């Protein structure tokens, strides 16, 4: 036994030394070989998305032998890792950022102002981009992120189910009332159980109900991002949510319990739902499944016809020590690189989008056209919104959506309350 112990100790010491040897070699590669500039790019995309990013990086490195691009892919827990790296002083030079976080990161000074680079000698022509998409990264006249990809909000409809019910396909000039009426016609019950729903209404997600609010002339925050009172509880918002509540209660959509219960399964794909209001993402699945479907703009309301945007962009970390080199790659990623990305997602870089035929695509085209219907979303207008007034608003949505027992709700009262509390919370958060 004593011998065995000795062996174990000796062996592990030996292994420990080998280990030390191994990672010493690795450690020195941190700054690259010789005078190579290393640019670290963080993305949350795994799978094919990651492969494309690798391809773009490789193309760039082929042209720039003195630069090494390291794509750091974090498909799970991206936020945790990035925040730990930033707080721990080891952040990547360029990182992907979701639309809801831009103003938060910007207001805390974590994002480099890109305007001087855009306007500089090695600059960009901003007219090459879809302006409403590019503007998501523009805060108070300065650019902080450039778009990687985006989506607007539109409605998928199953042509087969429409034909079967003898209903004409919706057109871009339809209204929320049309939407409701069609959805009711397409809801089929058998033996007291719904076997097909007219639509799949959004859950308690502010972004997903925004087009409806805008349609009725409502909003959740003022355009300058300072006030929620009078917006979150405006007549338009109240009307929109009353309408939303009416639609939910009418049984045209799976209840949240039902739809949440089917997470992972797409009810539109399995033809249990006839109209699906959402973003660009499932298009490829529907096409691959050989579905006969169309996409139409989001319905209009009594006040307007407005869509919303989902966006992911790239920004440069403000404490990066090589902003010049990082900018050069960011520019490449946002222009030339878009040619590769456009095969997969909507590109805000017009030449790439056109080369990929996105605007003319029978399905994707509607999403591109909807760019003109975009209204800016609240988290971008005020970094404190999500944590404060946004939470209050989601609470109201949760009560409406979760009201599966159809209790009577005082929606205007709830909204007045949420707006007052939200305003107060947002102001005290902004003071700090």
């Amino acid at each position, binding site marked *: *036994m004593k011998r065995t112990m000795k062996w174990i100790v000796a062996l592990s010491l030996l292994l420990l030394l080998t280990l030390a040897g191994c990672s010493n070699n*690795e450690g020195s590669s941190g700054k690259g070989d010789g005078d190579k500039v290393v640019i670290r790019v963080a993305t949350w995309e795994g799978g094919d998305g990651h492969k494309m990013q690798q391809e773009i990086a490789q193309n760039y490195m082929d042209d720039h032998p003195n630069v090494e691009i390291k794509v750091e892919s974090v498909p*799970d827990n991206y936020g945790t890792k990035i925040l730990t790296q930033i707080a721990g002083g080891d952040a990547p030079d360029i990182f992907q950022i979701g639309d809801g976080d831009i103003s938060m990161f910007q207001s805390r000074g974590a994002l480099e102002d890109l305007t001087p680079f855009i306007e500089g000698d090695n600059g960009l022509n901003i007219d090459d981009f879809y302006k409403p998409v590019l503007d998501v990264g523009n805060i108070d006249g300065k650019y902080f992120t450039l778009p990687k990809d985006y989506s607007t909000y539109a409605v998928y409809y199953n042509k087969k189910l429409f034909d079967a019910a003898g209903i004409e396909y919706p057109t871009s000039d339809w209204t929320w009332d049309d939407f409701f009426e069609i959805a009711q016609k397409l809801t089929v019950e058998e033996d007291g159980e719904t076997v097909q729903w007219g639509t799949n209404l959004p859950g308690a997600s502010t972004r997903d109900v925004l087009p409806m609010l805008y349609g009725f002339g409502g909003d959740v925050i003022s355009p300058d991002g300072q006030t929620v009172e009078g917006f979150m509880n405006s007549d338009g918002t109240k009307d929109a949510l009353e309408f939303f509540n009416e639609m939910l209660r009418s049984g045209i959509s799976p209840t949240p319990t039902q739809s949440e219960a*089917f997470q992972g399964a797409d009810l539109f794909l399995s033809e249990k739902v006839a109209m699906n209001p959402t973003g660009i993402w499932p298009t490829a699945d529907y096409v691959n*499944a050989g579905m006969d479907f169309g996409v139409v703009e989001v319905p209009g309301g009594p006040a307007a016809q407005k869509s919303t945007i989902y966006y992911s962009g790239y920004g440069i970390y403000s404490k990066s020590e090589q902003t010049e080199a990082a900018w050069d790659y960011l520019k490449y990623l946002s222009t030339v690189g878009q040619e590769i990305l456009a095969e997969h997602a909507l590109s805000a870089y017009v030449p790439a989008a056109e080369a990929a035929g996105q605007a003319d695509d029978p399905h994707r085209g509607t999403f591109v056209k909807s760019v003109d219907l975009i209204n800016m979303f609240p988290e971008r207008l005020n970094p404190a919104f999500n944590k404060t007034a946004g939470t209050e608003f989601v609470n109201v949505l949760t009560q409406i959506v979760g009201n599966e027992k159809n209790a009577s709700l005082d929606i205007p009262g709830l909204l007045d309350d949420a707006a007052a509390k939200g305003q107060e919370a947002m102001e005290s958060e902004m003071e700090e």
Partner: protein
Amino acid sequence: MNYKTTKILWKTFVWIVLIIGTIITLVPLFWMLSTALKSNAEVMQFDMVWWPEDPKWSNFVEAFTTLPFGEWTMNTIFITVFTIIGTLLSCTVVAYGFARFNVRGNKTLFIILLSTMMLPSTVTMIPQFVIFRELDWINTFYPLIVPSFFGNATFIFLLRQFFMTIPTELEDAAKMDGLGTMGILGRIILPMTLPALTTVAIFQFNGAWNDFMGPLIYLSDPDDFTLALGINFFKGENNQVQWNYLMSASVISMLPSLLIFFFGQKYFIQGINLSSGIKG
């Protein structure tokens, strides 16, 4: 009812209960396997498909050829083996100290040891990251391996409990024979607590093999990834997950844990023989 019928009835009861438990336990494994064998279309289906109509065994091949699983497996084995060695070496020694040397400070230090498990890691993660950055250990396996050589509170506690169940007579006798502290630990205590040591080794294997947060924070270069981290590459953009590939990879990556447990468990039984042998 005579003794024999009672015994048969009892055995039947035990078997029935164990088999019911087995079914409940095996459902997830079955589910993983069936998902792994589904086509992309079947994965997205609304109805619960228990077994795919046309099992696609090729998913396993595809899952493993699209990503560098060979490299990731080697990394995972490397880290796991070292942490097991580190854990066993450090935890036995430390636990022996806590179990047998009832001197001043023992109780206090032991409470401190336990208290290190009580603070949620969410708030210590960043300071720890800073320490390892200062040591220039980011993007190396060091932060994942080295701490295991300094003991793990859970396992020290577990081993201490087992060491304390061993009567001291044997050690007293060994001391008379002139055996030193390490000698007693190695020749008397460890053989008698083989079941507990096996348990620790198996737990540590599992912990290191499935560890996600550690590799996530400290490893950024895909060449350095472990299996638990790399598997997430089947999650594409917008949270679209290739469940069938993810599950095939998960099934394969859990096989080593299963095998280690299956073969490691014989030491539970040996442990009984050994300790009663010594006593007898």
